[in-house]
């Protein structure tokens, strides 16, 4: 099977003028729904590391096509956002399927390693500011270049999330409460932006110096830029380091300072709170979607089964944010 994949990769790379022998194919732990392969392409004793990111053909209801992720990265790299260079794109009907090949970026994406290992100790204090700058660059791009992406205003997303939650017929008192609370919030004050949709540790590559690349664009859309800020400040993405509000590594002040140094929209702390609740509710519904993909028999997977029991993490975070003074 790996030989077939190697030959399909060589063929695809040749189409874009990259010649060489594909070797050392290695599967990496990726998102729950994508395959990630690391490999090397060598010619004349020179070898280059690359990554293949490939959709399974069965995308969740929120995800965009894998090939469209590549289109976004080709655009945002032009405004200085840190993303891998896209080398080749394959359509669903081609041999490689819905996928793309990009350069391999040295560094780490596994959250627990970044938060724990010595190598990243110097990177962590500057990471929140760097993340703020990088996500602001992404939010500043001209949305007219992204007409292939879905538009998702907050109010529409909230209704979609709520009806998705309802469709599973597993009523949650906390989610009902959160939905009514969120409906009362004012989400209107913003300019339509390119939103990454899953901006957090796990989807960024970090080395000893700090942020290197933003990856995993499958939840990208056009919407409210504050969504990305609230998301990375959700406790779900602090990986146990709950005292560090930004992704388990940084302070909200630093994230916003970096953000406001680039962004047209100036953001303060209070504006982020309701987006933390929104993000936590959204993650809860995504957990439900994943769990029910397993329960319905669409995909048999221990990860997806397990994630059904992470809904309760989002419930306790919501009650903490709403009733117990959680940040």
């Amino acid at each position, binding site marked *: 099977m790996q030989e077939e994949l190697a030959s399909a990769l060589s063929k695809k790379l040749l189409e874009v003028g990259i010649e060489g022998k594909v070797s050392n194919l290695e599967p990496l732990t990726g998102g729950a729904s994508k395959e990630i392969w690391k490999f090397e392409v060598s010619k004349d004793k020179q070898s280059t590391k690359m990554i293949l990111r490939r959709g399974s053909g069965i995308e969740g209801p929120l995800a965009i096509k894998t090939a469209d992720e590549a289109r976004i990265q080709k655009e945002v790299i032009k405004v200085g956002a840190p993303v891998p260079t896209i080398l080749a794109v394959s359509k669903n009907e081609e041999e490689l399927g819905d996928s793309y090949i990009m350069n391999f970026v040295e560094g780490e994406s596994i959250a627990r390693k970044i938060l724990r290992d010595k190598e990243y100790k110097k990177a962590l204090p500057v990471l929140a500011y760097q993340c703020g700058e990088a996500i602001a660059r992404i939010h500043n791009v001209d949305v007219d270049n992204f007409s292939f992406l879905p538009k998702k205003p907050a109010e529409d997303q909230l209704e979609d999330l709520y009806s998705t939650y309802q469709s599973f017929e597993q009523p949650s008192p*906390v989610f009902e409460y959160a939905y009514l609370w969120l409906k009362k919030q004012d989400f209107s004050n913003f300019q339509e932006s390119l939103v990454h949709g899953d901006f957090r540790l796990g989807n960024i590559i970090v080395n000893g110096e700090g942020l290197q690349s933003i990856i995993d664009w499958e939840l990208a859309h056009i919407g409210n830029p504050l969504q990305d800020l609230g998301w990375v400040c959700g406790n779900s993405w602090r990986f146990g380091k709950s005292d560090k509000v930004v992704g388990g590594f940084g302070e909200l002040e630093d994230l916003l300072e970096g953000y406001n140094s680039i962004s047209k929209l100036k953001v303060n702390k209070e504006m982020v709170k309701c987006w933390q609740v929104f993000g936590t509710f959204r993650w809860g519904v995504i957990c439900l979607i994943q769990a029910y993909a397993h329960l319905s028999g669409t995909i048999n997977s221990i990860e997806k089964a397990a994630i059904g029991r992470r809904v309760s*993490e989002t419930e*306790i975070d*919501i009650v903490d944010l*709403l009733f117990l003074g959680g940040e």
Partner: protein
Amino acid sequence: MIFDRPTSGELIKAVMDFLDTKIKDELPPHLAFKLRITNNVLGMVQREIEQGETLQQEVYDAMQNLMHSDELTTKKLAELIKDGKIDLKDEDLKDLLVLLSKNKIEVDNPNYSTYKKLIK
């Protein structure tokens, strides 16, 4: 109970220990990651078997005080909130939602940061 020891909880614990001590180090990294998830899942089942009933009863008792209904279920509580039958500012409702969330996470993931913070 007609079944002998090991209890179902103890059997699951034995499986977890086996996976952790004998299998974990034999696996390549991407499967070791899946094994960690497998062990987490078994832990949930073990805790639900051993503590589930008590945790559930605590929630039902608290529901009794708030919901004037014969049906004490999370489904009914969700419905009462949705239909505006309980004031969202009601402190007893907030307390009940906190208790419900705490008792669920105690089975699903007692190492979760928010849970550990709240039981301090």
